[in-house]
């Protein structure tokens, strides 16, 4: 073994420095690889929503989802589900702002993030950010680990708890059923109050700002989803007296959650240098100690 004390310390110093450099990278978040064209999305104007739930029905129809019994006995009464579930991809609920006491209806569904946490989290890559803008799920890959459900800041992906072979289910922005056939989302098409507008995300942003500018007394000046969690393809408007947080749209940061985890992962594995460096350093230490034990005449270990 041609390794002596001096060489060993050299090796250890170099590899140690390399490992430190790699570990320090998480501090600077690397830029997201966002598509140049964000694709299509929806603008949900909660000030216009009348709470008729036509969108919920249209969603069930186009996705062929069963109605949900919301009573304890499981009877499928003419009633609305309480929360998103494996058979409810979108939901209208009334929310009351606790401070002002004002209430409004708002629609809930997948936000179709520009940099989706579910997509980053999925170990088999079952989630795809389609070029049309939708975040879709591939049942041919998914192994049902439910890490996407933990990762989603809005708790959107749902799991079929009562099936032996469960799917992950969520709003698809009608990607396969309508979008790729040149049609808008079913919920947007059916909305009688023009509260859901389907369109290109850039166009929707312009439209949202125009509405705010035209009626500043009617709108909160913020467009939710423009930057939250790195930006979403579904955007929201609200009344001045009903905060977004009271609508279930918390004031999330503007950096997409995957930026931190991915920069840690990619830092730790940068060109495989850190693991190889640690391997080499440990090998050096092992060789050094074996030689030292041998020189000591140590026969402790045969």
């Amino acid at each position, binding site marked *: 073994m041609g390794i002596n004390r001096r060489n060993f310390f050299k090796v250890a110093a170099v590899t140690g420095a390399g490992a430190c450099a790699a*570990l320090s990278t998480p*501090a600077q978040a690397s830029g997201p690889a966002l598509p140049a064209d964000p694709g299509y999305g929806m603008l949900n104007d909660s000030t216009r929503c009348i709470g008729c739930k036509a969108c919920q029905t249209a969603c069930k129809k186009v996705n062929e989802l069963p109605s949900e019994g919301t009573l304890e006995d499981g009877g499928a009464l003419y009633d609305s589900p309480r*929360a*998103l*579930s494996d058979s409810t991809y979108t939901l209208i609920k009334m929310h009351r702002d606790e401070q002002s006491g004002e209430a409004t209806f708002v629609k809930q569904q997948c936000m179709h993030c520009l940099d989706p*946490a579910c997509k*980053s*989290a*999925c*170990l*088999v*890559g*079952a989630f795809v950010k389609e070029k049309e803008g939708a975040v879709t799920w591939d049942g041919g*890959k*998914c*192994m*049902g*680990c*439910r*890490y996407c*459900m*933990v*990762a989603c*800041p809005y*708790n959107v992906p*749902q*799991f*079929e*708890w*009562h*099936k*032996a*072979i*469960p799917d992950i289910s969520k709003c698809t922005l009608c990607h396969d059923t309508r979008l790729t056939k040149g049609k808008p989302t079913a919920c947007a098409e059916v909305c009688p109050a023009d509260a859901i507008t389907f369109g290109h995300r850039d166009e929707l942003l312009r439209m949202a700002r125009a509405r705010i500018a035209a009626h500043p007394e009617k709108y909160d000046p913020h467009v939710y989803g423009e930057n939250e969690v790195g930006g979403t393809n579904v955007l929201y408007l609200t009344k001045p007296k009903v905060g977004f947080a009271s609508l279930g749209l*918390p004031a*999330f*940061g503007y950096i997409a*959650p*995957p930026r*931190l*985890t*991915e920069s*840690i*992962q*990619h830092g*730790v*594995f940068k060109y495989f240098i850190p*693991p190889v460096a*640690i*391997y080499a350093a*440990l*090998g050096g*230490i*092992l060789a050094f*100690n*074996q030689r030292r*034990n041998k020189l000591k005449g*140590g026969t*402790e*270990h045969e």
Partner: protein
Amino acid sequence: MSKAVALRGKFWTPNVALLVFFMAGAAVFSYFRFFHGFGSVTNLNPNYPMGMWIAFDVACGVALAAGGFTTCLIVEIFGKHKYHALLRPAILTAFIGYMLVGMAVMFDLGRWYYIWHALIYWNGNSVLFEVAWCVMLYLSVLAVENVPAVVEEYKDKVSLPGLLGRFNGLVNAFLQVADKVMGKVAVFFVLGGVVLSFGHQSSLGTMMLIAPYKLHELWFTPWSPLLFLMSAIAVGPSMVVFEASLATYFFNRKSEIHLIGDFAKFIPWFLGAFLLARFGDLAWRGALAAAFVPGTYAYAFWVEMALFIIPCAALMNKGVRFHGVKLFLAACSVILGVVVYRFNVFLIGMDMGPGWNYFPSVGEFAVTFGFVAFGVFLYKLAVNYLPILEQQH
């Protein structure tokens, strides 16, 4: 130096019957889980999609199997061969631990029959992808590291029962080849095992960082992977002490206190380093104040800290280290501390949104107990028929 030998004691004892009882209980609930869905067994719900099977069976399972790589690190890499007697049991229990983690993952995957998809569909951005690969590779490394024990006991003595007897020659040939090869390549596996452990022990700490708006600030830190790794290194020797103490008690062996008491001197160093990093991180992020806001998060945090700080201080004292019961209790405290730390990150410290709560169901507990029982069962089987524990005179 004495040699490891198979115990060859009586296998079917009342204690083993108890293990079988727990395993049978788990089997009953697993029928419902696999044929009637999670809803028939677990309390998992849309906001709590991961429960005790992930927090305990997987996250704690991996951490508590850290005895394998930490003992390898101390004995093989840092050349402390006086602890050689602790190596084989540590590597065996690590192998059993990781096997159970693999099985627990199968239980927790909704589409368990697609588990092999991790091999062919790669998402390098996913933290879980890295965990899955490191665990798979490390389980293979641990299998290889356990081969010498099998070779030592069964080379040229292969005698399989019944019809399997016709494979005696083939198995023996394999053992002979393994015997020749192992001496030359073992060192590469030792190093590989440690690097792989560094990888996934830390990545488990990165896992919940994908949910910055759910994990409480007492645990949400970009240094979480380092803290997970450091706590795993601290719990490794504690597990070795824990298992050695139980083996001494249950197999009526002579006390190994001179050895494990000496080995336990590493624990306060590793634990102290971890605690320094933990509090340093909290102070640096300005999150320490949150530990003094009364509520579940602060209580959970202080329970975790107490379970670490008390044994850390106690084990600095020689009188504690070389006292069988006190040493065992200190090791238990470190182990419980790591369990609480993992639960805090995976469940208790996670604010999963309004409308839902989670506490494990009877079925979830039964399956987890079944796994633990199966692990102990496998351990007894292995030490009975393989040279794992040192001969005592």
